[in-house]
């Protein structure tokens, strides 16, 4: 199936586009623009098809894995080749950008790689070798293969210094919101387990907040905050303004609350009452029970809540630029405003990457912090 998708991408859709400058649409070029690399691409798609008919499970896995990694490398060099050849004799404003065909090819590649490696997905060590090799091959394509000439790389080169600042701003904003969310959410979740009324209020309110569209919540926070800072100059001195980091941080904190509060509550409430009874009966104080028994048992679920919250916040942080915050959202919305596809990609791709990395890292942390005795 991966090979089918890859084939469709390679034949039916434009491979790269040559454009007169970074804003106007350009002329489509087929995969033939990749020159000699096109043949390798075809060959690797063929290997992918072999995986469907290979006689043994092992051969199937091997052929799809090989074609998956191979395609990534061949794509990197093929695109580089296309960019360098097409740009010969063109003015410096001209750009070569990636066509839809490349994205579809990449999706097919991901499917091939996945079906090849599905049974050993958990073992990072086995992944390390091929991954490092692939990364080196892509880096080489940047250095010598012309991959640095594609429009996305050019866009990055222009924005390199502000890009890192904005990335840092994104992380700082999402991280701070998450920190506040944790500092508030865990105690609230704990309180909810001790008091029925608190539970219904806290879970109800955070649930409603979660439903409100983030942009609307941001808007709803800005107006009153602006009024507040007008009325109380001392607050303005502290940096509380209608526009700027404050409304964004409040919104992010509120969004982080639901997953953290709910998971803390569920994690603590799900601890077997017999365990608590036994602990109390043996003479543990409420604090000892909480620290030695309840929290360790609830921790995996709490981390799971933090994971959900952090993925959510990395996305919503993007929107805080409307309230004047500075982060990767600036690239996205400037790009949308200028109709500059590469600028959008430059903002959106790192945001997606951050979210995926946060997801993977916090899943791993959750597994690591799961007490051995309760691991599935």
């Amino acid at each position, binding site marked *: 199936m991966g090979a089918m998708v890859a084939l469709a991408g390679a034949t039916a859709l434009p491979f790269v586009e040559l454009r007169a400058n970074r804003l106007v649409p350009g002329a489509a070029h087929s995969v033939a623009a990749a020159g000699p690399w096109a043949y390798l691409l075809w060959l690797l798609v063929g290997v992918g098809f072999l995986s469907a008919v290979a006689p043994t499970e092992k051969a199937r896995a091997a052929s799809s894995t090989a074609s998956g990694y191979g395609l990534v490398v061949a794509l990197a060099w093929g695109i580089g080749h296309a960019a360098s050849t097409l740009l010969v004799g063109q003015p410096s404003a001209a750009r070569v950008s990636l066509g839809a065909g490349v994205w579809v090819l990449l999706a097919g590649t991901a499917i091939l790689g996945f079906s090849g490696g599905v049974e050993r997905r958990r073992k990072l060590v086995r992944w390390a070798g091929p991954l490092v090799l692939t990364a080196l091959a892509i880096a080489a394509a940047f250095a010598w293969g012309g991959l640095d000439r594609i429009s996305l790389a050019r866009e990055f080169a222009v924005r390199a210094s502000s890009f890192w600042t904005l990335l840092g701003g994104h992380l700082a904003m999402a991280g701070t919101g998450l920190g506040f969310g944790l500092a508030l959410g865990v105690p609230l979740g704990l309180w909810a387990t001790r008091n029925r009324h608190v539970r219904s209020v806290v879970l109800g309110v955070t649930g409603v907040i979660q*439903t409100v569209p983030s942009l609307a919540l941001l*808007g709803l926070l800005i107006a009153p905050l602006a009024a507040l800072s007008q009325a109380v100059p001392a607050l303005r001195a502290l940096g509380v303004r209608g526009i700027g980091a404050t409304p964004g941080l409040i919104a992010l904190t509120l969004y982080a609350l639901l997953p953290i509060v709910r998971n803390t509550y569920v994690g603590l409430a799900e601890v077997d009452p017999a365990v608590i009874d036994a602990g109390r009966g043996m003479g543990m104080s409420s604090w000892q029970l909480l620290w030695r028994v309840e929290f360790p048992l609830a921790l995996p679920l709490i981390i799971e809540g933090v994971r959900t919250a952090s993925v959510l916040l990395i996305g919503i942080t993007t929107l805080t630029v409307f309230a004047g915050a500075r982060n990767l959202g600036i690239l996205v919305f400037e790009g949308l405003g200028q109709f500059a596809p590469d600028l959008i990609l430059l903002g959106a791709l790192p945001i997606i990457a951050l979210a995926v990395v946060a997801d993977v890292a916090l899943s791993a942390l959750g597994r690591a912090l799961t007490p051995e005795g309760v691991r599935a």
Partner: protein
Amino acid sequence: MSRRRIGVAAVVVAAIAFALLVSAQGLWQSWLSALFPKQPIVLMPRDTLAAFVLQHLVLVAVSSALTIAVGVPLGIFVTRRSGAEFRALVVAATDLGQTFPPVAVLALAMPLLGFGFWPTVMALFIYGMFPVVSGTIAGIESVPRAVLDAAEGMGMSPMQVLARVELPLAARVILSGVRTSVAINIGTATVGAAIGTGGLGVPIIGGLAVQNMAYVLEGAIPAALLAVLADAALAQVEVAVTVPEAAAGA
């Protein structure tokens, strides 16, 4: 039973109240003028509030309808024997897809698909699929093995097992996936204003751009109400399709 009816009635009343509220242009005019006396224009001139709401609703309705029409059958397919080999792939793809921020996905739709209504619908549709598909898979797989054995043992055909046993028992979980998906769609559609699809995001983003807080409220308040209302309505549907025994167990 009566509690259910009260819930449905409350949602219907709230929906009518919401419709009346957003149609009352004059009310908003006077109210926002009172709140922001220094602001000469308090309602975005581009469209009436009702029109913004309608644009928003159409966008969400079309994309959610597509999402359900494709997502539920896909989820069912991979839980059948014929689709079993795709199950791992679909689960991995939906798990990964759900970690993608919806804003980023929407932004990516523009370079790939262009500006306007349909590209936004496509982005919302694709993104909305993830919770629906994973909800469908989770719902169907939560049906106890023993129940399926009993159904097969009584001579039901696979289609009958699906229609009479699996789907009714999975309905609640499937619907909660739909509910999540619709909530995300309503929220993301707000951002759609940035790629020219209209909707309630227009006054919010426009208001922020020109520092007119009245515009912001004109968009933000109805958007928040709409989201909460849609969520409450779907919660009622969820209650209505829940098998009583399952409700008692939950």
